[in-house]
C-alpha cells in the first residue's frame, strides 16, 4: 500500500499542478499510525500528509455530496468497494460526476483496530504493513501479527478488487490477496435459529445502541437532507432510545430505507462504537432480494431500477416467503 500511496501523492500533485483538479480528497495522517482521517488537500505541499494504509477504511464517496457542489473539480481516491457507493450516489443525483476526478486505488483489505486490541495488543503506536505480515510497535513492545486475522469484518467478504467507476487507476500488479468468506453465512446461521433465539440475539446486540447515529451518518446511502428520525413532523422523530422499541424501530427503518440501495459497504458496522453487527440487517435484505427477485448489487451500475422501485408480475408472494421460513 505504500507503493500505492506514493502513486497517489505523485498523481495528485500532477493533477493539482496542471489544474485538472483544485482539491484532493484523501486521508491525512494523524497522531498514530491507525488514525488517518479523511481530509481535503488544496496544495501540493500539503500532500506530504496524504497517507494510505490499512487504516484508511473511512469511505470518501459520501463527502462528495457536499464537495462536488463547490466550485471546481475534486480528485477523490476510491477503493473498489467505495466505487459502488459512488455509483449509487450518482444514480440518486447526489454527486456531480463532472466535478469529480476518480482515482481507483488498490486495496489490501482494511484493518480493525478493535480486533487488534482484542488480540491483546495494547498501546499501539505504529504498525509495519507488509502484505500478510504485520508488526505492531506498542507501549509494551513489538508484536507480530497476520493481516488476515485483523481484517475488518467488511473486508472478510470483500466484493473484489474491481473498480466500478474511475478516471484512472492506482493499483499494483501483485496485490496481497486473501480468501473471502460467504457474506451470508451469519445471516443464514441466524435464520436457522428459533425466533426466540433470534430475538435474544438481536436484543443483546441492539440493547447496546446509543443512538449516536454514526451508522446513519457514515452510510453513503443514508444521505437524506433531513432524516425522518430528525424531523419533528415525521411522526417518528426520536433522539434517544427511550424504549427498546425505538432501538428496533430505528434500525429496522434504517435498514428498510436502504433496502435495495445498500451497497453492502459495511461502514455501519465499522463505525458503530458498540460494534453492533448492523450489516447483518442489510445483508438480510440483500439475501432476500437476491433470493426473491434475482441477484442485485446496488452500485454496480448507475442505470436501471433498484429492486424496490420495480416489480415483476410473477414475484414471490409474501405468504410463500412466510411458509418458506424467511428465505
Amino acid at each position: 500500500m505504500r507503493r500505492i500511496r506514493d502513486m497517489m501523492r505523485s498523481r495528485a500533485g500532477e493533477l493539482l499542478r496542471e489544474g485538472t483538479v483544485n482539491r484532493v480528497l484523501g486521508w491525512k495522517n494523524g497522531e498514530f499510525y491507525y488514525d488517518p482521517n479523511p481530509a481535503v488537500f488544496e496544495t501540493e505541499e500539503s500532500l506530504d500528509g496524504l497517507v494510505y494504509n490499512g487504516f484508511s477504511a473511512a469511505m470518501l464517496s459520501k463527502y462528495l455530496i457536499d464537495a462536488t457542489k463547490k466550485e471546481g473539480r475534486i480528485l477523490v481516491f476510491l477503493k473498489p468497494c467505495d466505487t459502488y457507493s459512488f455509483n449509487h450516489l450518482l444514480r440518486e443525483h447526489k454527486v456531480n460526476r463532472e466535478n469529480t476526478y476518480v482515482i481507483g486505488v488498490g486495496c489490501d483489505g482494511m484493518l480493525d483496530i478493535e480486533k487488534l486490541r482484542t488480540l491483546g495488543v495494547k498501546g499501539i503506536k505504529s504498525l509495519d504493513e507488509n502484505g500478510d505480515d504485520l508488526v505492531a510497535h506498542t507501549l509494551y513492545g513489538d508484536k507480530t501479527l497476520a493481516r488476515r486475522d485483523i481484517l475488518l469484518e467488511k473486508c472478510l467478504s470483500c466484493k473484489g478488487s474491481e473498480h466500478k467507476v474511475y478516471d484512472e487507476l492506482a493499483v499494483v500488479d501483485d496485490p496481497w490477496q486473501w480468501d473471502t468468506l460467504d457474506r451470508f453465512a451469519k445471516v443464514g446461521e441466524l435464520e436457522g435459529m428459533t425466533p426466540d433465539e433470534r430475538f435474544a440475539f438481536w436484543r443483546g446486540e441492539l440493547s447496546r445502541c446509543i443512538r449516536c447515529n454514526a451508522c446513519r451518518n457514515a452510510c453513503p446511502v443514508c444521505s437524506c437532507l433531513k432524516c425522518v428520525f430528525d424531523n419533528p413532523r415525521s411522526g417518528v422523530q426520536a433522539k434517544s432510545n427511550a424504549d427498546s422499541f425505538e432501538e428496533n424501530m430505528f434500525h429496522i427503518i434504517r435498514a428498510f430505507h436502504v433496502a435495495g440501495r445498500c451497497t453492502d459497504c459495511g461502514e455501519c458496522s465499522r463505525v458503530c462504537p458498540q460494534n453492533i453487527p448492523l450489516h447483518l440487517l442489510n445483508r438480510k435484505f440483500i439475501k432476500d432480494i437476491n433470493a426473491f427477485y434475482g441477484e442485485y448489487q446496488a452500485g454496480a451500475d448507475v442505470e436501471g431500477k433498484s429492486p424496490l422501485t420495480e416489480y415483476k408480475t410473477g414475484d414471490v408472494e409474501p405468504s410463500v416467503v412466510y411458509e418458506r421460513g424467511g428465505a
Partner: protein
Amino acid sequence: MPINEKGGAFNPLIVAFCCNWRSYAGADLAGSSRLNYPVNVKVIRVPCSCRVNPLFILRAFQRGADGVIMCGCHPGDCHYTSGNYFARRRTALLFSMLDFLGIEKGRTRVEWVSAAEGAKFANTMNQFAETISALGECKRLEDIRCVESEI
C-alpha cells in the same frame, strides 16, 4: 381462552390495512353478508396497499397491536395498476426482516382480497385472529411507555 399477563382474558388487537378499492369493499361485503369475524380486527382504509408504510406497521406494534395484516387487490388487479406489486415486494421484505429479528412471523400477514370476496375476508380474519390468539400478546415490539398503566 388464552390469558394475558395481567391475568385477564387475552383479546388480541389486530390492525388491518385495507385498500379502498377492493379489500375494503371486500370487508364491506363481509359485513353486508353478515359474515362474522372477531371484533378485535380494526380496519384502516388506505387508497392502495402501496400506501402502507412500514412505519405504520411498526407503529401498530409499538402501540400494542398483536398482529398486523395488509390486504390489497389481487396482483394484476390493482386499481392503480401496479401499487400492490410494490406493496408485495415491500411487505415480503419487511415481514421477512421482522421474522429475522425474532418477531413471530404469524403476526404479520398479507392477503389479497377482492371486492367480491367477502367470505374470504371474513375467513382470513378469523384464521388470523386464531393464529394471533395462539401466539399470545406481542411484547417484542411493544413500547412499554404505551402500556395503559403508565402515563
